[in-house]
């Protein structure tokens, strides 16, 4: 699946998108944040406060307990500041 990062999440990780293949045990958005955090220091820094991170699956806001099964594109970003 494709993962996208925005704003300071993108800056901390250093890339704006990548394709990942998490193991089956990674079932929810929360699981995925944990799995990504263990991939290296930049990820750990980006996700150091998981409660602040917002996620979207296929362009729709989701909660941390949302399942990632079937997702084509998952995005992580800080709270929105548009408008």
């Amino acid at each position: 699946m494709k993962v996208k990062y925005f704003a300071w999440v993108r800056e901390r990780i250093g890339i704006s998108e990548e394709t990942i293949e998490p193991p089956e045990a990674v079932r929810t958005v929360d699981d995925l944040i944990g799995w990504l955090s263990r991939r290296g220091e930049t990820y750990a820094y980006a996700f150091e406060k998981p409660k602040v991170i917002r996620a979207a699956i296929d362009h729709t806001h989701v909660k941390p307990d949302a399942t990632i099964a079937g997702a084509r594109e998952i995005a992580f970003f800080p709270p929105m500041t548009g408008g």
Partner: protein
Amino acid sequence: MTTIATIRIQEADFDIAREIAELTKGRRDVGAVVTFTGICRGEENGEPIAALTLEHYPGMAEAEIGRHTDEAMSRWPLTGLAVVHRVGRIAPGENIVLVLAASQHRQAAFQAAEFLMDYLKANAPFWKREESQKGTSWIEARGHDDAAAARWTKS
């Protein structure tokens, strides 16, 4: 007649008079047009800023705004809606966002415009970074924007 909904995300500035004309031309049923224009201020929290840079999530931003214009059209009797959101670098005094709601009567137009602005602030995937003498930093979300958006949730 049908309700027209325009959604655009662009680097270029917008022209309010032209957007109003687009939603009203050739119609005899529009009695009220409300516009909201968000403008880049020259200071944030008392600190002068040099510019804002707006980043967005292409695809999701349009989808999210579209869900909210659809909801506005189902909640109020509107004749037209437009949302134009700029991205890229924006200097103080320049426009950031335009929301326009047209209806037969004023209450629907006011309510729809306010609803859309509250949702854009809290839910649309845009992020602002500010440049000041201290460097650049991401603007933090304000808790009362979430509260403003929540008041539209049907119980």
